[in-house]
């Protein structure tokens, strides 16, 4: 009996995980929060989501064709869809169509393919694109739609929605354009602080329960603390992501926020509000945990997560932007090679420096 098979070395059997399966499971974990976000923000959000994901796939296919390779097998790994999906989650739900297209282009071309494609990039592509968009197009990227769920009479219909997405922040088709937008919780707090108001006044109308569920202004898929956390915990249970980054990130924010809130509860928001707002949950479970751009070791991941948490808290509290999650992740991404250089597992039979251990005295 003759058999020619490669490879000759083990393992000949394997675990039941593939790259595409990992990607699809992450998308499955994102789905509840995404579906909720799409429902909350209606047709314009759905248009933007489809445009963003589709253009991410097209840009990926374009780049792969430029490399002279067949696009289909690479697209099947699901990474481009996931990048587009994550980017869409972080965009203002009523942003014009070209925001999605430009964002996907930035994410796929500048964020991923110029480095050499999947697994080679230094920065998280979705965050890179989001931050670039925020700096380049501040108006479009900070116009936040009210919650206006699909099929509610007060919400814009299909035709009006089409106009919102494809005419670019032109809400003139609506009855009272101004009534459809407002500030996010974090943005509102930032503005009010600048006018020397204190938290008890600022947060008069704040409902932590509605924020927890996600019934609030914010990015397309980032509003629901509950659904994002559920998806994240499921990913940890599925062993797709490790607990270290999310726990270190959330714990750092909680500790810092608690200390400052206890010292001065009128000028520093509570830890719960921190965890329950902005991009916190999405970043902690889905962005910071990106394999490619986070450290390899458990200890390194703790450091990375804590660093992200620290930076988010600092930017939110003292920075010019109300939310700092994107900046925090990018800064820590750039520190990842350094973390991996210094924090390594100890090799069996060697000390931390790589020298053989001493023979124990018996």
């Amino acid at each position, binding site marked *: 009996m003759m058999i020619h098979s490669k490879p000759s*070395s*083990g393992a*000949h059997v*394997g675990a039941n995980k593939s790259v595409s*399966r*990992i990607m699809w499971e992450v998308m499955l974990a994102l789905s509840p929060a995404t579906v909720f976000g799409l429902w909350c923000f209606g047709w314009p959000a759905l248009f933007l989501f489809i445009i963003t994901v589709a253009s991410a796939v097209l840009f990926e296919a374009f780049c792969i064709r430029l490399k002279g390779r067949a696009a289909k097998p690479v697209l099947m790994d699901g990474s481009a869809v996931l990048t587009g999906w994550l980017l869409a989650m972080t965009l203002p739900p009523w942003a014009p169509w070209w925001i999605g297209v430009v964002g996907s282009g930035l994410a796929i071309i500048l964020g991923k393919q110029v480095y050499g494609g999947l697994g080679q990039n230094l920065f998280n592509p979705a965050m890179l694109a989001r931050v670039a968009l925020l700096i380049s197009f501040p108006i479009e990227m900070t116009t936040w739609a009210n919650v206006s769920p699909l099929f509610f009479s007060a919400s814009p219909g299909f035709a009006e929605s089409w106009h919102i997405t494809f005419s670019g922040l032109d809400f003139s088709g609506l009855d009272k354009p101004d009534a459809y937008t407002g500030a996010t919780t974090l943005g509102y707090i930032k503005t009010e602080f600048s006018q020397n108001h204190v938290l008890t006044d600022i947060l008069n109308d704040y409902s932590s329960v509605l924020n927890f569920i996600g019934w609030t202004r914010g990015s397309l898929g980032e509003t629901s603390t509950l659904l994002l956390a559920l998806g994240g915990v499921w990913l940890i249970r599925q062993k797709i992501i490790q607990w270290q980054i999310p726990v270190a990130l959330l714990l750092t924010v909680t500790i810092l926020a608690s200390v400052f809130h206890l010292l001065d509860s009128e000028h520093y928001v509570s830890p719960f509000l921190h965890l329950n707002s902005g991009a916190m949950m999405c970043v902690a479970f889905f962005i910071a945990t990106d394999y490619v751009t986070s450290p390899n070791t458990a200890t390194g991941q703790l450091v990375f997560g804590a660093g992200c948490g620290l930076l988010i808290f600092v930017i939110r509290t003292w920075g010019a932007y109300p939310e700092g999650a994107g900046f925090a992740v990018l800064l820590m991404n750039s520190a990842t090679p350094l973390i991996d250089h210094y924090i390594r597992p100890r090799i*069996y039979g060697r000390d931390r420096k790589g020298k053989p251990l001493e023979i124990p005295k018996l």
Partner: protein
Amino acid sequence: MLGFFSKPRIRGGVHAEEHKMLTASQAIVNNFPLPKKLYIPLQQHVGKPAEPLIRVGDEVLKGQLLAYSQGMISAPVHAPSSGIILDVNDYPAPHPSALPIRMIVLETDGKDEWINAPGIDDPFRLSPEDISLRVGAAGIVGLGGATFPTAVKLNMGRENRIDTLIINGAECEPYLSCDDRQMQERSEQIIDGVRLMLHGMEADHAVVAIEDNKPQAYLAMQAAAKPYPQIKVIQIPTRYPMGWDRQLIRYVTGREVPVGCRSSEVGVTIHNVGTAYATHKAIRQGRPLVSRVITVSGGAVGRPMNVEVPLGTLISELFDFCQVNAEQTARIVMGGPMMGDSLPHTGVPTVKATSGILALTAAELKSTDEQPCIRCASCVSVCPAGLRPLDMANNIRVNQLDAAVDIGLKDCISCGCCSYICPSNIPLVQYFKYASGEVAARQQAQHKSEQTKRLMDARNARLERIAQQQREEEQARIAAKLERERLKAEQEATV
């Protein structure tokens, strides 16, 4: 003291699907038909190959010495059955390359007649050195797959004052169950072998460590060890590679063997349960190692089983007996599916190292569709040796082998956990074995080129010396000639 209660954390490892029930539930098959021809490699162990002392045409009895051990680390080879020596020549090895190695071909006569070799009734009156000698003479090597000569280990044990002998009954590889069955069916003989090993090493304690997925083996071994307080049978967690000697040593004793040291230097020696059984047979019955229990399993095997076969049996005959479906077989693996090597064909013999032969179907195999590394770091978290396989693979891919060595290539134990877990199907162990071989080859090449350069320099110096000599001789000759001519001219002038 044994650190039973301070169990150190088990580092890395995976829990692969076991597939052991295919074979673990039935008794060892003892009626394997004697093959017509046996192919007995001269090297079935770590160290120097044995040197044949028979000639083609000799008649031999079962258990007769065919080739003697050579040098400090080596092992002899015995006739697995009675018959006539047909050939001593090169035949395909049980190795991924199937390159030819020297083998003795024995045509069996069907009588399977043992040589007359008496056993010892009271071996504990033998000196420990005598135990080692007999174990060595019986050709016993580590039957877990490492095939290190057992006698050498016993000697090292005596020299290093071993306090704990660990008997490895982990059998952590999926599919394999030959140790499990032996522990169930031959527990008393194994325990006797353990006592003989303790005697041979002058050690006090033995710990038999069995993974907790083999409760029946554990009970049988515990019952057999009951009369002997110096032998403790313990259960260890089921997690591959629990049977890696250094993992087991750390788990059982809390000690970590430094890189570059043998386990005996930390007071521990480790032997496989099959080796203990072979030791019992050699000392008590005078039987050398001429057969072993092999697990034949995998999805393409019609009758998966544990079967005792003579060493040198061709795998093709074993497959016929176990009704292996050739069409369904996508890969033949010698050993377990994690660390075993694939074989290109079945025309190779079973050897002392053969704990299992698997005929795996395409569905059982890991996909070979290699994708880019996504740096998920699963390989880092499963590596029991604390390496970073992804970084090593990246270095190897761009041919920076020295960089790979710097971050631990030589500490890789090829356990296969990283390849097993990799979602991108990167054959990491294959990379590492290639790189290790390449590093060794480069060092050899460098050594060779240095040697060549030295020879070349020496040759040039020699040629230069000869040329110099010739020049001097030539000058002397010319000078002499001139002198002669001058003298001649003077003579003529005077005449």
